[in-house]
């Protein structure tokens, strides 16, 4: 029961860390670890089939997608003559609130995917050893 109730909280916490990571402690790696902790929690509570809601795809795919996002966003500036991983910051007005969005957020999303994929692979690999 607790695991079921904690799942959304873990997801929100991971998203919160991902969001604030640009200027404050947090970021993609931490978000991935928190999300991964949610996966481990569900595995322990419900067994191998229980992680589906948090990790619907094979872990290696998630990892690969994360790598492509993170490195791909780093390569874009190289193509236009800037150093690798150079970022831009956009100021958006959403529902009357000013939001600062950095392109490095995309990089962080990629990192999150990598870490989540990694945790998923660990859990699957080690959990299946009898």
């Amino acid at each position: 029961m607790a695991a079921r109730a904690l799942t959304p909280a873990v997801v929100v916490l991971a998203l919160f860390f991902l969001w604030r990571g640009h200027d404050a402690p947090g970021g993609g790696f931490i978000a991935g670890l928190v999300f991964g902790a949610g996966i481990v929690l569900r595995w322990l509570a419900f067994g191998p089939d229980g992680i589906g809601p948090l990790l619907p795809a094979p872990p290696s795919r998630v990892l690969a997608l994360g790598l492509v996002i993170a490195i791909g966003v780093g390569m874009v500036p190289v193509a236009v003559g800037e150093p690798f991983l150079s970022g831009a910051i956009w100021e958006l007005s959403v529902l009357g609130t000013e939001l600062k969005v950095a392109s490095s957020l995309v990089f962080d999303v990629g990192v999150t995917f990598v870490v989540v994929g990694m945790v998923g692979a660990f859990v699957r690999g080690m959990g299946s050893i009898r």
Partner: protein
Amino acid sequence: MSRFLPLAAATPLLLAAAVAVVPAVVVRRVVAAAAIATCGGIGVAAVGSTGDGGVLATQLGGFPPPFAIAMAADTFAGLMLVVFALVTGLCLAFAGLRGHDGSPRAHAGALALLGAAAGATLTADLFNLFVWIEVLLLSSYVLITIGGTARRVRAGTIYVATNLLGSSVFLAGVALVYATAGSVNLGVLRGAAAGSGGVAIGATLVVVALAVKSALVPVHAWLPRSYPDAPTWVTALFSGTLTKVGIVALFRVVTVVFDGAAGVREAILIVAGVTMVVGVLGAVGQTSMRAILSFHMVSQVGYLVMALGIGTIAGLGAGVFFLVQYIAVKTALFLVAGAVESQEGSDDLEELGGLVHKRPALAAVFLISAFALAGVPPLSGFVAKVALVRAAFDGAAYGIGATAVAVSFLTLLSMVKIWNAAFWGSMPEEPIPGEPRAGLLVPAGVLAAVPIVLGLFAESLWVVADRAARSLADVVVYASAVAP
């Protein structure tokens, strides 16, 4: 040019992700070849554009130095990129010919390994170096357990445990350096160990951790216990890239942070001598080709750090020359062992014999590589060892020079032992059925041409090695490029 440097690491990593999800093995091979060519091409370009002794540098993310992670390439780094790319390509080619690259993990692991090796070679930031080495180890964990037999998992366990311990020491060292010097940028840290005890202790921890990764005695025991149990092409790949990244990083950290301090160099010379002797003696008791070769790897690492211990331009140049030709030779030897194991069903010396009649080409490739490893003229190993020993004597390091010569003879003895047991003598009465495959010898053959060419035309590599040594020694140029 310099902004393209990170692509040497990023492209293989990106394409590693791509090959992990591609179902067709042919496509995976083509993608892998493209990634390897990109990395090697950037290496060639870096060597080409640092001929004047300059250093290419870029600050990641466009942040101002010294806060950004800096990546830099001098001639030494460029040369290593080329060598790493070449070895990765040939080992993957061997895996393909042997039919061992069926799992997507093979290509993905090898490309991630290459990308991390490139990143570790290029980075000018201690913490970033730690991250690259972790990526390197992560991909090697995947590769060492491909096939997942109990022996391999056991070998992987020793390997993982040792390297995690090494990584913890590394991280502690980086933390100490950051706490005392306030920066992990190698440009800022130039010569910093002399002025601050905290930096000196931290950097020493980093050096110790790198010694673990490079398998220097007394922190070498993990290597001969885990390498022989991995798939053959993986052992060959590890021998050419993984342990050598430790050496490359060791060269950079010692020359820059310690600025070649005499006390550090003397300590390194002692470790180098002990490593040579312990490795070569350890090989005596081994009975399989790969186990013997693994102990020799430990021994030869001694020669590499000996160059660092001598520390003169001549010594470093000899070390770079030695490193390049040694990587080719050692990878060739492991690939020969792999070919023997594939075709004869075993690489255990007691199960083999008379291969010189049965497989003369294989015997020739082995003989050339083995003689090059021992340092028989006119092969490149001879040129490299003469240069090393001469540099040692010129630098008044007589003890290590004599040790290097003596260990060469013991190396030859070990190679003769393999030759006598596997290639000479009579064929085994009940041969184990192997699975011969066409062209399996080609990658090893290509690598075995290296010691011949570099032995007869040593001048061509010597010019580049000398430039690489000067770029290593000229830490002022490096530091001002990295942290202007």
